[in-house]
């Protein structure tokens, strides 16, 4: 079959990212030809500033080398500018006469720097700052000339000025506005920025308008003259006053343009055969000049070019980070404030820290940070997710402090870490390794970094640090994913919320039918999505959906915990942490009989038998004669109790019996992640109820219920939900909360993260305030748990059944 022809005009980051995404989806669909005006393969334009500053070389910033084009059978024409598109004959023509026919055309022509229309703008020594050529020219000028003037005090201008200064030039920045980076910073932050740049030796001329660039004797620019008459020397003038989408080519062939090539949500232009991505495209009236939105566009365009037809680009919220070494600056959203918004400001001029958060209707709408940008990613996430911050408003300014909990010595500022510092304690990954992977492999997302380095891919407590490193390497190109719309995994573009909604609305009853209905990209998913879909099916449709053992992680399939050597651990249930001499004797006998090497008391008040061979599991269960402790499941784990009023002289409530009742009620409950409870008999709280998913604390007049605590990676104190009087109310309230979590939590989301996502107010409204809804939730939980059988007893009984045998028996040959 003849392959379709895809021609791409423009060999930059947005275009090449589109090709990469396309090749992932449909590697053989197109014969691809690429035209680029520059004589280079695709490079990372964002990193031109570090190149200018002498911190990196051109070689370091190449994203796709020539081999990449060859390996993917892409015909690459570098140094050839397309001058004409013949839409009728479906071909493009380059300046040198080269032509190429297309079935689909992808425009990724980027943008052109805007040159001020002043006399002398075409003199030698007057340049823009856009590509490798400009950068080389600046590096050359720095060797032979003294005075540099940068026109434009925006992001790009300041990075250019900083680089030229580092190369030894005497640099002045001319800016027409009253303060620097006025589109990203408010006046205070800009003032602090200016001060620290002045300390680096830069000079600033604000509120000055350029009148003329004056030539010297050699014909090269020699001076710049302002409208107020003043003249200063200038051997190099860099214009960084803005960019204009490069639409000349599109306009010349009659494509509709309006400050960019106009595209719809599928990145298609008004000619259905032609797509446009990147800085040249105008989407819903916006042409983006930052790289992160371009990548989102690339994904959508690739999806449609691959004829999948399901991606949709709906615009981006952007953030900015200045890439000047030693200066931390972050801004996002609408930070200027106004009459209908609240501002929270922290200002410490001597300490060099300024933070401003702009709130509207209890949502974060903008943020500016100078000096301390540790929480930039977190604020940006809150902003993108439009999360209700009412509950955390009082400490919002002080950040997430999620950085540096365990495993990396409490460090919380990635910039100050040496390359040898261990960032990820789980996988032993140092900062230097992460930086190297990001720059060498051209990584832009947290997922990419996790994949290549394993950093933050296990417990995730160092995620904040890794995000900081990523942000400092790629600047504004780093965009944390919107947590509500992030795809479950590479097998689909749908998010957890969408998958769950579809399973509910379409009544999908098995993993296979769910994947089929939602057009999964892979034949049977992967180890990430299958367990999630299985959980959504069985929790949404209890007693109806089919529970697929092969879509469960081995621990839930074998009803035991796999250990590093492939053996398993067995934890029998001890209701509320209570046991009997008879049970203890049986546990001892089992440990003897099966030569179990390690017997340990767990944190959840039970006994762990470690080092059991898989083939021995059914026998161990049968001999124990105690129900499964589900210590292996995304499920109810334990209800920890203190001695309580049964024995304790301080006890106010019967915590042991309350705990046993709760644990028996919840037996067999599968949940998005593990669930731990505790009941303490008095506020001394010996059962540590403050760090449990549901913590109950007895007081003289009843019980206080706390939810969404966590004692793991990051210690999170549970939040007060309500106070109740009776044991029955404790069961109903806890059960309703857990059912809500079961219905709304994303797979592998602990209660603490679930509640942070939806807000405690939401939970209180549905569980505490709305009695009818609480009862309905509670009933749904009890219905789901009805008739649950202990999996160990079931397996021990059915030991002879072939399916059980299949799981545990080894074949000898």
């Amino acid at each position, binding site marked *: 079959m003849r392959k379709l022809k895809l021609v791409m005009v423009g060999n930059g980051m947005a275009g090449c990212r589109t090709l990469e995404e396309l090749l992932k989806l449909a590697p053989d669909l197109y014969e691809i030809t690429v035209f680029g005006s520059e004589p280079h393969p695709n490079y990372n334009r964002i990193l031109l500033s570090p190149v200018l500053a002498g911190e990196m070389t051109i070689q370091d910033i190449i994203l796709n080398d020539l081999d990449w084009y060859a390996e993917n059978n892409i015909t690459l024409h570098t140094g050839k500018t397309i001058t004409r598109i013949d839409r009728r004959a479906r071909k493009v023509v380059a300046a040198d006469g080269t032509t190429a026919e297309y079935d689909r055309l992808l425009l990724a022509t980027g943008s052109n720097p805007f040159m001020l229309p002043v006399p002398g703008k075409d003199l030698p020594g007057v340049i823009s700052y856009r590509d490798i050529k400009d950068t080389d020219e600046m590096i050359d000028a720095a060797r032979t000339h003294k005075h540099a003037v940068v026109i434009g005090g925006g992001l790009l201008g300041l990075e250019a000025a900083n680089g030229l200064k580092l190369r030894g030039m005497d640099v002045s920045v001319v800016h027409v506005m009253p303060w620097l980076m006025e589109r990203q910073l408010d006046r205070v932050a800009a003032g602090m920025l200016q001060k620290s740049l002045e300390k680096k030796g830069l000079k600033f001329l604000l509120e000055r308008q350029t009148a003329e660039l004056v030539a010297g004797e050699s014909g090269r620019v020699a001076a710049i003259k302002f409208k107020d008459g003043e003249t200063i020397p200038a051997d190099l003038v860099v214009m960084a006053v803005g960019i204009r989408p490069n639409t000349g080519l599109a306009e010349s062939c009659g494509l509709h343009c309006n400050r960019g090539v106009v595209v719809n949500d599928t990145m298609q232009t008004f000619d259905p055969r032609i797509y446009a991505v990147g800085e040249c495209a105008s989407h819903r009236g916006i042409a983006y000049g930052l790289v992160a939105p371009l990548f989102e566009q690339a994904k959508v365009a690739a999806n449609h070019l691959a004829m999948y037809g399901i991606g949709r680009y709906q615009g981006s919220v952007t953030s900015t980070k200045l890439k000047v070494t030693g200066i931390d600056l972050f801004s996002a959203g609408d930070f200027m404030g106004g009459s209908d918004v609240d501002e929270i400001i922290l200002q410490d001029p001597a300490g060099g820290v300024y933070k401003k958060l702009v709130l509207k209707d209890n949502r974060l709408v903008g943020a500016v940070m100078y000096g301390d940008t540790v929480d930039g990613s977190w604020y940006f996430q809150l902003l993108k997710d439009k999360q209700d911050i009412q509950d955390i408003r009082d400490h919002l300014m002080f950040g997430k402090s999620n950085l540096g909990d365990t495993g990396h010595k409490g460090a919380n500022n990635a910039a100050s870490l040496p390359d040898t510092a261990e960032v990820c304690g789980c996988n032993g990954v140092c900062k230097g390794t992460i930086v190297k992977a990001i720059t060498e492999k051209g990584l832009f997302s947290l997922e990419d970094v996790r994949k290549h380095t394993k950093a933050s891919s*296990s417990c995730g407590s160092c995620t904040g640090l890794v995000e900081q490193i990523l942000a400092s390497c790629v600047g504004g190109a780093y965009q944390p994913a919107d947590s509500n719309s992030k795809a479950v995994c590479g097998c689909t573009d749908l998010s957890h919320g969408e998958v769950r909604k579809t399973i509910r609305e379409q009544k999908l009853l098995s993993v296979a039918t769910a994947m089929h209905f939602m057009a999964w990209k892979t034949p049977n998913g992967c180890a990430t999505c299958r367990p999630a879909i299985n959980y959504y099916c069985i929790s949404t449709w209890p007693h109806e959906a089919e529970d697929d053992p092969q879509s469960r*992680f*081995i621990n839930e399939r074998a009803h035991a915990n796999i250990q*590093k050597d492939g053996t398993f651990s067995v934890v029998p249930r001890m209701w509320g942490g209570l046991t009997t001499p008879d049970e203890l004797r049986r546990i001892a006998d089992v440990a003897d009989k099966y030569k179990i090497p390690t017997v340990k008391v767990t944190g959840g008040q039970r006994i762990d038998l470690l080092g059991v061979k898989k083939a021995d599991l059914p026998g161990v269960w049968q001999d124990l004669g105690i129900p499964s402790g589900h210590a292996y499941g995304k499920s109810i784990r334990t209800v920890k109790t203190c001695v309580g009023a049964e024995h304790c002289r301080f006890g106010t409530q019967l915590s042991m019996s309350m705990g046993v009742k709760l644990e028996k009620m919840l037996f067999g409950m599968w949940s998005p992640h593990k669930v731990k409870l505790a009941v303490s008999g008095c506020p001394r709280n010996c059962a540590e109820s403050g760090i449990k998913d549901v913590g109950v604390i007895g007081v003289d007049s009843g019980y206080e219920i706390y939810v969404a605590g966590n004692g793991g990676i990051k210690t999170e104190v549970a939040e007060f939900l309500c106070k109740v009087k009776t044991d029955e109310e404790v069961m109903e309230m806890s059960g309703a909360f857990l059912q809500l979590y079961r219905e709304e939590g994303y797979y592998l989301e602990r209660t603490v993260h679930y509640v942070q996502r939806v807000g405690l107010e939401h939970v209180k409204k549905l569980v505490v305030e709305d009695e009818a809804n609480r009862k309905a939730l509670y009933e749904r939980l009890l219905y789901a748990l009805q008739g649950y059988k202990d999996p160990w007893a079931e397996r021990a009984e059915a030991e002879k059944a072939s399916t059980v045998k299949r799981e545990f028996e080894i*074949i*000898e040959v």
Partner: protein
Amino acid sequence: MEAEVKTPEQAIGTWKRVCLLADIPVLGSRVVRSSSGDIAIFRNADNEVFALHDKCPHKAGPLSQGIVHGKTVTCPLHSWKIQLEDGVAQLPDIGCTRSFSVKVENEVVFLNV
């Protein structure tokens, strides 16, 4: 069931009868104890059967206990993805575990060890 020999040049070795195809769950595996160590035999959704040394090249995790998807198994210990056909770890991880010839004839699984 179509007969299938992974690497014909090895077919001269000794084919040993292992089990019935039905003894391996779809998208699952069985462990075979042999003189060459434990071998994991996998069955995917297309009823293809594969055999790998039951040790992940990373930290020797038992691949037989992993989740099978497509022609890949994800190791249960640290989620390396190992290709069932040749035992090679998928990028960015690098490593390889030994693969064995396996064939299915008349619903019976044979392993070449």
